[in-house]
């Protein structure tokens, strides 16, 4: 068996993992599974694409940074895209989710997210049509690194970016007051409120982190694969499966779950065929729900 699937799996796993962090945080802190999370991914990517386009019209063609396929415009655009996605999530929370949460039926919020997801996705199709686009059409030469594995400079850069982001989010979640407030909210919202934790600000931070990482994951997909309005929706099942496999509420768990699913998908592509790839997350999801519903690092619900 060709070991190339390890690199492919790690890359897919990074995208799934970054998305799953948002899913797991929304689930444990806001207490609902957000079906619109994939669409944050797609919206962030299209926002980034639009900014790249705007920069190109203002500054003309910019040469990419040495071995990479993209230059500073994409990096600037990504920052703008992240900010845009975070604002989108906050806006959606203000007009929809925060009001639905007040009805105290968790499942109504899930339903609202399902409706929002459909509307967001179709709006993207309306604005950009469903034709796939790309950040760059340049073809990168993959460098052989031994054991029959080849990797492109873009892929190395994005793997490093993922590692840095995951480490950063983990440090925020474990070492800062904000992170501890988030943990308190997920463990016992009533007690957290009594202890004087600013619930509104925890909710905001949760949305911002989740949406920002979703945007980065979407741009990764855009750089390495392609940009489509459905790109986020297609990631939804792998992201949910990763969050549940890792254990709801656990950030390292979500990333590890994402990597496991990414590697399993890549292996399945090689062994069974690319067309069955989407079934892998479902099989893993069912196995987890039957064998160990709390996931790898989960805690039993109180």
């Amino acid at each position, binding site marked *: 068996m060709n070991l190339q699937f390890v690199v492919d799996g790690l890359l897919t796993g990074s995208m799934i993992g970054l998305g799953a962090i948002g899913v797991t945080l929304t689930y444990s802190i806001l207490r609902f599974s957000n079906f619109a999370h994939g669409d944050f991914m797609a919206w962030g990517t299209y926002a980034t694409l639009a900014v790249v386009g705007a920069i190109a019209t203002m500054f003309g063609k910019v040469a990419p940074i040495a071995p990479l396929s993209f230059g500073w415009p994409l990096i600037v655009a990504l920052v703008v895209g992240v900010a845009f996605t975070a604002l989108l999530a906050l806006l959606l929370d203000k007009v929809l989710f925060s009001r639905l949460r007040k009805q105290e039926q968790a499942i109504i919020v899930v339903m*609202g997210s399902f409706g929002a*997801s459909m509307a967001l996705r179709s709006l993207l199709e309306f604005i950009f049509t469903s034709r796939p686009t790309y950040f760059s059409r340049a073809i990168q030469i993959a460098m052989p690194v031994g054991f029959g594995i080849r990797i492109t400079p873009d892929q190395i850069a994005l793997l490093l970016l993922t590692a840095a982001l995951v480490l950063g989010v983990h440090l925020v979640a474990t070492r800062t007051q904000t992170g501890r407030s988030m943990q308190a909210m997920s463990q016992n919202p009533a007690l957290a409120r009594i202890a004087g934790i600013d619930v509104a600000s925890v909710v905001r931070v949760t949305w911002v982190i989740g949406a920002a990482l979703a945007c980065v994951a979407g741009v990764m997909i855009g750089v390495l694969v392609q940009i489509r309005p459905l790109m986020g929706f297609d990631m939804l099942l792998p992201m949910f499966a990763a969050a549940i496999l890792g254990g709801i509420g656990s950030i390292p768990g979500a990333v590890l779950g994402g990597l496991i699913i990414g590697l399993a998908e890549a292996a399945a592509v090689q062994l069974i065929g690319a*067309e069955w790839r989407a079934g892998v997350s479902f099989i893993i999801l069912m196995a987890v729900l039957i064998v160990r519903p709390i996931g790898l690092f989960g805690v039993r619900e109180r």
Partner: protein
Amino acid sequence: MIDLVGYGAFFLTTALIFSLVTLGLNLQWGLTGLFNVGLAGFVAIGAYTSALLTTPDDPARLGGFGLPILIGWLGAMFVGGVAAALTGIATLRLRSDYLAITTFGVAVVVQLVALNAQKLTGGPFGIGFIPRPFGDLAETPLLFNLSNLAIVSAVTLCAYLALEHLTRSPWGRVLKALREDERAAISLGKSARFYRVQAFAVGGAIMALAGALQAHFIGFIAPDNYLSILTFQVWVMLIVGGSGSNAGAVAGSVMVWAIWAGSGALTSVLFTPEQQARAASLQIVAIGVMLCVILLVRPNGLFGERPRRMRFGKRVKATAGESGP
């Protein structure tokens, strides 16, 4: 004039098939509080099962067993019910969101099988030559449409009456009790999980039957018919009609389908062919916003009568206590 009657019959037949799906969803969600976001998958299971059982033999794929249509419908209900029961058994002891995620996964997998398992489902081109109940009347479209309408109305009416009866039966009262106050119902010795699995399975069987009906009405099925947009349409129908009421489910379906078909006809008049795909996505945006607004303003639906008093905080604790160590 005759064209209009024919179109009216065609429209009502489609709307009633949608009502049948909505009735199944109403049993799962309206009566029992089970969230199914993969219902397109169960509809597809029914359509494909019935198509496999009743089509003439086809060397390119499995079967085509050429059985009578009625056997196809019963087979569809059986397979759809079993699939729903398995989904329920795997997830109903867990938090309610897990059922939602799993049903979503079921729809993805069914779509995947429909597209890729060519030997079973015909792949992206689907299955054709599905026998129609009154196929020999096809030369006179009006008679054909009317007889289709008659048979679909009859099936929907049967399902409606059966569900009304079930709702009032002791079985239906247990489901309602579980939804309203799970702990009280459990303390009376009712197994929450067992009753929920039953409701979910019956709902799945009804959805599968609707899928089969539609397959035989159109005569041709393909994976594209069962995308998540179908799930979404049926949810809007149920919410508009008011979850919990079977009559509301039927009324909501006809109403939403009228809006959908009407706005579809409008876009095809107003927009050039190149712009129509984009206009169609705007149609979905409008319906999505409508769903969110109804959830915000009238969570019980436009015709929903009773205020629902399901409290999920309680339910979570009770389930945890039941399945805990």
